[in-house]
C-alpha cells in the first residue's frame, strides 16, 4: 500500500459547423475542423502517449497498470480520422494491464434529463468497448465526474457495475481522505472511487507552471508524495484528461519524461503498486459511507454544474434538446437519432458558459466559438432544423384524390424531411 490508480479520460467533441437560420441541410458538423483537431491531438498526445505507456507496461512486466475511459464520440472520430490510434489502444487492451471504463457513449448530461436515454447510452458504450477491446466495463464514470447518490443507486440497479468514480471534493468528504474506498449512501454492493484532486492536478494543471513552488516536478519528487500516503490510505486515484500528456502539457514541458520515469520511481518503494479500478475494488473494502445529495463534478473551483447549466441559454438549450426525445425516437430514423445524440455531447453546453468569459481563461482555450452567445445561436439553429426533420410518418389509408400537375405520376410524399 498504497496502490496508484491511473485513469485517463479520452474525449473529443464533435464540433458543429457554422449553421445559420438560413441553412437548410443535414450537415451539422464541421468535418474538416473535427478531422484536423483529431489528427493534431493524435499526433501530439494519443499516439506518443499510447506508445510510451505500451513500452512502460512491457518494461515493467505486468506491474504497471492504467485505465481509460474512451467516449463513443471519440471512437467514432478516431475510426474516421486516425485509425492508427485505435490500433494502439487495441494493443494496450491486449496487454492485460489496461482497464476500460464505462460512461455515456455521447459524453452527455443525459443522467440529469432522461434516465432512459442515459441507460441506453451506457449500454451502447459498453457494447462498443466490448466489441473493440474484448472486455465489458465494470466501473462507471459519469460525464465530467458528475455524481450524486441517485446516480450511484441507478448504477447499482443496472446490475453490471462494481464501482463508480467521482471527484474527491472537499465538501463531500470533510475531514476524510479520498485515498480510501467508500460506499455511496443507499447502495449495498457498489463502491466509490474518489479522485485525489490535489495529486492529480499537480500533474494535470500545475506541472508546467513555473510560478509553482514545486516546479519542476520530477518523477522522484512525485513518488515521495505518493509514499507519504503510505499508512493513511489504500489508493491514490490519479484521474485526468489524457490530453494532459502532450496537449495540455506540451512535450517540451517534459511531461513524457516525467511519465517515463514515474512507474519505476513509484515501484521503488516496496509497499507501492499499480492497480486498475477493478483491482482496487477487489482489493479494498469500503471504509465508510459518502452521502452526496447535490450534484458534484470535477469542473472549475466550484465543482458543480454551473459550467454547463449556469445561465439561461444553457438550461434552455438543454431542455429544448431533451424535450425532443420522444419525437426523435418516434421518428425511427437512425440518422436523426444519431444527430440528436451528438448534440447531447456536454461540450456544446460548456461553450455557452458565460462564467469567466470576460476574463479569458481555460474555458476559452477549448472553445471553437468567439463567444458563448455565438455557440448558443449556432446550437439552436441546428436543433431547430433537426426538430423540423422529425415529422412522424403518417400512413394514409386513402390515396390522395387529385395530385397536382407537378406531382402527377410520382408517389405522394407524406414525409417531409
Amino acid at each position, binding site marked *: 500500500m498504497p496502490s496508484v490508480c491511473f485513469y485517463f479520460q479520452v474525449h473529443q467533441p464533435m464540433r458543429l459547423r457554422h449553421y*445559420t*437560420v*438560413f441553412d437548410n441541410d443535414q450537415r451539422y458538423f464541421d468535418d474538416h475542423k473535427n478531422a484536423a483537431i483529431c489528427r493534431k491531438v493524435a499526433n501530439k498526445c494519443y499516439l506518443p502517449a499510447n506508445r510510451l505507456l505500451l513500452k512502460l507496461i512491457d518494461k515493467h512486466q505486468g506491474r504497471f497498470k492504467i485505465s481509460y475511459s474512451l467516449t463513443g464520440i471519440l471512437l467514432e472520430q478516431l475510426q474516421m480520422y486516425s485509425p492508427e490510434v485505435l490500433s494502439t489502444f487495441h494493443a494496450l487492451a491486449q496487454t492485460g494491464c489496461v482497464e476500460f471504463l464505462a460512461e455515456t457513449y455521447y459524453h452527455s448530461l443525459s443522467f440529469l434529463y432522461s434516465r432512459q436515454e442515459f441507460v441506453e447510452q451506457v449500454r451502447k458504450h459498453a457494447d462498443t468497448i466490448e466489441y473493440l477491446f474484448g472486455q465489458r466495463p465494470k466501473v462507471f464514470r459519469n460525464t465530467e465526474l458528475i455524481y450524486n447518490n441517485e446516480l450511484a443507486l441507478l448504477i447499482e440497479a443496472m446490475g453490471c457495475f462494481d464501482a463508480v468514480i467521482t471527484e474527491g471534493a472537499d465538501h463531500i468528504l470533510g475531514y476524510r481522505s479520498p485515498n480510501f474506498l467508500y460506499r455511496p449512501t443507499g447502495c449495498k454492493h457498489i463502491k466509490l472511487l474518489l479522485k485525489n484532486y490535489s495529486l492529480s492536478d499537480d500533474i494535470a494543471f500545475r506541472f508546467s507552471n513555473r510560478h509553482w513552488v514545486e516546479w519542476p516536478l520530477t518523477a522522484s519528487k512525485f513518488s515521495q508524495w505518493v509514499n507519504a500516503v503510505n499508512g493513511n490510505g489504500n489508493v491514490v486515484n490519479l484521474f485526468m484528461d489524457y490530453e494532459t500528456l502532450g496537449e495540455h502539457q506540451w512535450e517540451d514541458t517534459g511531461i513524457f519524461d516525467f511519465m517515463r520515469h514515474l512507474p519505476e520511481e513509484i515501484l521503488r518503494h516496496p509497499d507501492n503498486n499499480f492497480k486498475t479500478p477493478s483491482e482496487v475494488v477487489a482489493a479494498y473494502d469500503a471504509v465508510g459511507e459518502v452521502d452526496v445529495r447535490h450534484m458534484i463534478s470535477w469542473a472549475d473551483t466550484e465543482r458543480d454544474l454551473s459550467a454547463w447549466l449556469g*445561465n*439561461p*441559454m444553457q*438550461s*434552455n*438549450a438543454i431542455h429544448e434538446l431533451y424535450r425532443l426525445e420522444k419525437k426523435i425516437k418516434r421518428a425511427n430514423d437512425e440518422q436523426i437519432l444519431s444527430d440528436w445524440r451528438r448534440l447531447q455531447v456536454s461540450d456544446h453546453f460548456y461553450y455557452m458558459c*458565460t462564467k469567466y*468569459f*470576460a476574463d479569458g481563461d481555460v474555458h476559452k482555450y477549448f472553445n471553437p466559438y*468567439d*463567444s*458563448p*452567445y*455565438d455557440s*448558443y*445561436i449556432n446550437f*439552436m*439553429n441546428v436543433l431547430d432544423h433537426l426538430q423540423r426533420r422529425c415529422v412522424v410518418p403518417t400512413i394514409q389509408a386513402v390515396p390522395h384524390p387529385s395530385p397536382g400537375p407537378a406531382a402527377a405520376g410520382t408517389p405522394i410524399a407524406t414525409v417531409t424531411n
Partner: protein
Amino acid sequence: MGLNDEGGHIRVFMLGWEFPPFISGGLGTACYGLTRAMDQLGVKVTFVLPKTVESEYVTHVKLLSPRSRRDGVSHVMAEEDLTNVIFKTIASPLQAYANPENYDERVEESLRLRREMIEQGKTEGDFHGSDYSGDMYSEIRRYATMAVRLARDEQFDVVHAHDWMTYPAGVAVAAVTGKPLVVHVHSTEFDRSGEHVNQVVYDIEREGMERADKVITVSHFTRSLVISRYGIAPEKVEVVYNGVERNGTWSVGSTSIKRDEKLVLFLGRITMQKGPEYFLHAAKKVLEAMDNVKFVMAGSGDLMYRSIELAAQLGIGQKVLFTGFLRGDDVRKIYQMADLYVMPSVSEPFGIAPLEALDNDVPVIISKQSGVSEVLHHALKVDFWDVNEMANKIVAVLRYPPLRMTLRSHGNFEVRKLRWKDAARQCASIYEQLLVAV
C-alpha cells in the same frame, strides 16, 4: 490626483464640442462625460466651444451664471454643479459632424435663422455675417486665432483638443503659450469617408497629431489607424476608452410590454460610416425568416433619403420606419420599445450608443470594426459586411428569450464598469506625465 507642478490642481484649456441639451452624437456625449468626470476629480477646465450665429452669447464673456434662451430652454450653464469648469464660447458656425461638403449649407441655414430673428425683433444686435469666413478651412483657421486671443486671458497647464476641427486651435494655443498639447482622436477621416479621404482634412488631422505631445485615441482600433495611416510614433499614442453616463433607470420589467411585433433599432447618424445599407440588407434577410418584425432607423444624415429609397427598393418599405433625429426622452422611449439594437458601422472609432442601449436594457449587435467591441464582451459581434450573419443573429435574439435575457443581464453589468471617472483619471495622469516632462 490631478496636481500641477506648482502643487495646485491641473488646469486644462479644453477645445471641445456641444453640451446638453444640444448633443447631436457621440463626440458631444464624450466631451460632456469626460469634462463632468474631470470636474469631480478636481481638474480645472476652461471649456471652449463654438457657438453658432443664432446664439446670443458673444466671445470673451465668462458665462458664470445660467441664462435663459428666448424659448425658455436653459442653456449650457444649467450645469451649475460643475464647480471646476468654466465655459467660453467663440462665435463660429463650426459644428460637430460638419464636413467641408455640407458646411456651406449649414452656414447659410444659420445666417438665415439669425437674419429672421433680427427682423422679427426676437434678438438684438447687428448681423455679423462678415465674421464668418467663406469656407470651412478658413473658418477653422479663424477659430484658431480667436482661441489664441481667448487663451491669453487664461491660466492653464495643458491644452486638450477634441477632433480635427479644433486641432489647429490647439496647435496655435500651445505654440503661443508654450503649454503641452494633447489631441483627442474621436474619429479620423478614414472612419468618416472610407477611402475617399479629403486630403485637406487629413493634413489638418495629421499636423495636429504630429504637433501634439500626446495623442489620445478612443480605442486600439483607432490607435492602430493613427499609427499606420498618419505615421504617428506608437509611444506617443495612448488609448482612453469612453465611458457611459448611467441614467440610473434600471427598470426591471419595463420592457415586458407584450407585443406581437418585435422592434429592431438602428440609432445614429445615417451616414456612410454607420453602415445603414447593411442594416437594411440584413433586415431584408430577417424578414425572409420571420414576419413579425419592424425595423426603426432613428437618426438623420446625408444618407437618409437614400436609405428610404433602398428600403423601398428592397421591398421592405412598410417594415422600416424612419424617425428622424431623436433627442432626450424620445431616445429613452425608443430604447424601451426596442428588442435589439444594431450598430453595423463600417468604421467606428468607439461607439457610445451601444453602451447606452445596454444601459437601457436593450441587447446589442455591434460591428467588429468598432472600438467598443474591444471593451464589450457581452454583445453579439459581426463583420459589418456580413449581412447574412447579422440577420442570423438578429433572428436568434428575437426568437430566443434566454439569449436576450443573458445578453441583457451580463451586458448591463459590464456597462456599469465603463465609467467616465476612469477615462478622466487616465487623462489626468497623461497631463501629469507631460507636466513632469516639461
